[in-house]
């Protein structure tokens, strides 16, 4: 690994510009020479960056990967009748467990609500900090970052990797490549492996998996996810973002003039010069950019941010770290490349441009001491709180509050009734009228319960239930298994003297007499039109 001197080691006054790196943006070719319609990918060897954004990215990687790998192993006691895995998508039994929340299929709107919140949240984040999703949290970015770190560990930093790539085959090269790709595969298998643990009891499945007793779908899922992780993160990397992912195009369209994007501030950087002192001595105006190419060398998508906003830019901000490092070394202010809004940039650009020649003149933004002119705009917290972002925040919070309320006040005991419509009613031999219903009792807690099902509001009527050996009556005690639905065929009969023509309304009531939970269903009883 290359040694990066810390800022304390350097005396800014004596520091000369660092030697420029020999690097070209991978998308520069199109602008230079006759091109074929199809071109081979230019391999990118991102140089190691250090700084606050790199540190943030390490932390986010640790958190996101940590959540992904560890979550299925968390336990959560739900008693003897439900699984004790904290997060479990139980497809076979159609239940979704998330810590203290258990969701039945008909409650899936909570998940839909979460997805809506994620969507609005993404709009919010994008409108404020641009493609932050792409740069920091997208799995493609996180895993690619991890794979690049592995590559760097075995093969060294940028120059060493480039040398290795060019070198002819040797034992040393083979050893390094095999080691790198072996670790890639291990990570990929672990990635695919972690996925399946969300769908079954993790310890059991792991044991079955390694003893070859797991279902075929477990192996095929791991195989597919291993392949995609290895190919996308290990081999294709930035090409996934540039050629395959539709999301960058959508996100880029959600930016506006007040969104923060990674920007090369050419209003202070240009004209760039590798020999600033010499040029200054000759009386030429010189910008802050020393054209060292550090920003290009660290870029994981291999572009030159100084060419302006490009779809290849995932706003990972590593070029900011690289440039800040150089700026500190040469004794200039940080922020030549920075998160900046288009409005701010245009404003500063207007100041910097000589109205007659249209060229950037750095002296227009600085005074003789090198201090920025007061008119120059810098980052302002206020851009976070603008109408658009406030609308997103409100919508996001509103959905969240509504969902939370719905979740906290939801029923764990339900009765659903479906009336027979064919036949609508049946006349019995004593002249009474009978209607049939399919009644579903939902015991949505992981404990067995006795649910009292009764009818109310239909004069003289009694009910009988198939498979329940109790005499006709108006109330039945029905045992329901933990966390299960019990479907009953219920016949409600009303004696002749009580029947009214046409439809009559009444209620099915389901009650748990211990917890005092109850649910009512408004049903209809039909009799012939006389």
């Amino acid at each position: 690994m290359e040694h990066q001197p810390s800022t304390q080691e350097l005396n800014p006054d004596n520091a000369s510009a660092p030697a420029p790196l020999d690097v070209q943006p991978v998308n520069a070719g199109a602008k230079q020479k006759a091109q074929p319609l199809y071109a081979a990918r230019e391999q990118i060897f991102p140089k190691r960056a250090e700084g606050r954004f790199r540190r943030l990215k390490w932390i986010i990687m640790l958190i996101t990967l940590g959540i992904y790998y560890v979550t299925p192993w968390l336990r959560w006691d739900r008693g003897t009748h439900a699984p004790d895995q904290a997060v479990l998508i139980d497809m076979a039994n159609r239940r979704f467990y998330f810590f203290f929340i258990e969701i039945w299929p008909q409650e899936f709107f909570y998940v839909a609500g979460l997805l809506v919140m994620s969507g609005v949240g993404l709009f919010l984040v994008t409108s404020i900090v641009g493609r932050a999703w792409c740069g920091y949290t997208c799995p493609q970015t996180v895993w690619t970052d991890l794979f690049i770190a592995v590559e760097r560990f075995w093969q060294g930093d940028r120059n060493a990797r480039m040398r290795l790539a060019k070198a002819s085959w040797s034992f040393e090269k083979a050893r390094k490549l095999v080691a790198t790709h072996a670790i890639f595969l291990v990570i990929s298998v672990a990635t695919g492996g972690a996925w399946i643990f969300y769908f079954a009891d993790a310890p059991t499945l792991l044991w079955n998996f390694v003893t070859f007793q797991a279902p075929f779908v477990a192996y095929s899922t791991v195989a597919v996810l291993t392949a995609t992780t290895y190919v996308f993160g290990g081999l294709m990397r930035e090409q996934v973002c540039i050629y395959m992912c539709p999301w960058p195009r959508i996100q880029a369209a959600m930016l506006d003039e007040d969104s923060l994007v990674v920007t090369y501030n050419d209003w202070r950087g240009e004209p760039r010069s590798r020999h600033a002192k010499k040029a200054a001595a000759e009386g030429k105006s010189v910008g802050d950019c020393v054209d060292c190419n550090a920003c290009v060398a660290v870029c994981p998508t291999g572009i030159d941010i100084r060419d302006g906003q490009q779809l290849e830019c995932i706003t990972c901000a590593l070029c900011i770290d690289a440039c800040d490092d150089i700026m500190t070394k040469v004794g200039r202010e940080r922020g030549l490349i920075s998160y900046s809004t288009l409005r701010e940039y245009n404003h500063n650009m207007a100041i910097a441009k000589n109205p007659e020649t249209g060229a950037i003149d750095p002296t227009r933004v600085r005074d003789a001491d090198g201090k920025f002119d007061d008119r120059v705009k810098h980052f302002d917290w206020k851009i976070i709180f603008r109408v658009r972002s406030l609308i997103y925040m409100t919508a996001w919070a509103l959905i969240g509050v509504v969902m939370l309320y719905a979740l906290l006040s939801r029923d764990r005991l339900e009765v659903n009734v479906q009336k027979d419509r064919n036949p609508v009613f049946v006349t019995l031999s004593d002249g009474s009228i009978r209607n049939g219903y399919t009644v579903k009792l939902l015991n949505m807690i992981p404990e067995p319960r006795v649910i009292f099902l009764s009818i109310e509001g239909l004069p003289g009527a009694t009910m009988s239930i198939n498979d329940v050996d109790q005499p006709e009556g108006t109330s039945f005690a029905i045992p329901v298994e933990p966390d299960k639905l019990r479907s009953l065929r219920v016949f409600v009969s009303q004696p002749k003297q009580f029947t009214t023509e046409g439809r009559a309304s009444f209620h099915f009531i389901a009650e748990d007499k211990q917890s005092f939970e109850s649910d009512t269903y408004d049903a209809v009883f039909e009799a012939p039109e006389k």
Partner: protein
Amino acid sequence: MADKNEIDEVSGVETTGHEWDGIKELNNPLPRWWLWTFYATIVWALAYTVFYPAWPGITGATAGILGWSSRGELAQEMTDLKASQAVYLEKLAATDVTEVSADPELLQFATAGGASTFKVYCEQCHGSGAQGGPGYPNLNDDAWIWGGTIEDIYTTLMHGVRYEQDPDTRISDMPAFGRDELLERPDINDVAWYVRKLSGQEFDEEAANRGETVFADNCSACHGEQGEGMAELGAPNLSDAIWLYGGTHADIVAQVTSPRQGVMPAWSGRLGETTVKQLAVYVHGLGGGQ
């Protein structure tokens, strides 16, 4: 089309030379693997046509070396389905029809099977909800001409009603009191009023009193003293609210004069014992089973 490629002024990118109404195509090269992927899909498509039916000919298409056909797939699915049902069907074949309800799983299987069989063979007469119609009994109610226990229903289904090809079929033969001149018209008129009285409907007092004797002499042997019916003989209950051929005075007169006698085929030969068991379980569970 322009002959020569040029450099676009705004983007600085070379054009491909293609131009449509002044709009020029820039040449930002696609990655080469994209092209290979495209070729790979073509190879895949061609290989597919070798393995699966594809190329059309005069009388048909190439069969493909895997020998796959949608008909074959259906046959396979049906076989798999039958295999998955086999365990229940065997169990059902070995279980007496009265014992089915003791096994909840078997009961569920039999009810579902019965429901689907009913839709194919029974609903033409008994209706899609088994609600019946004039001349065709409603199977949801609690009135059973030939008995409503599961055994009775099973026997009726197995051998049919008045189905001559089956020697064990259920037979009842009510005399045609009017057509065969066994009773005079006024007597028939009177006995019909009496039957209205028995079933608790409006009736003519005088006529019903006269009809009581006629009923005792001619009808009670089969239909019972109080018209309560007799399932062993297939004599319907005349005192309840359910009328197969209608309960108005005119309907009753018509039935006494010249009875209509419905026929139901025996299903044992056509459906087999196990399927009939499923049907019996289904019909018994419709709500009126005894």
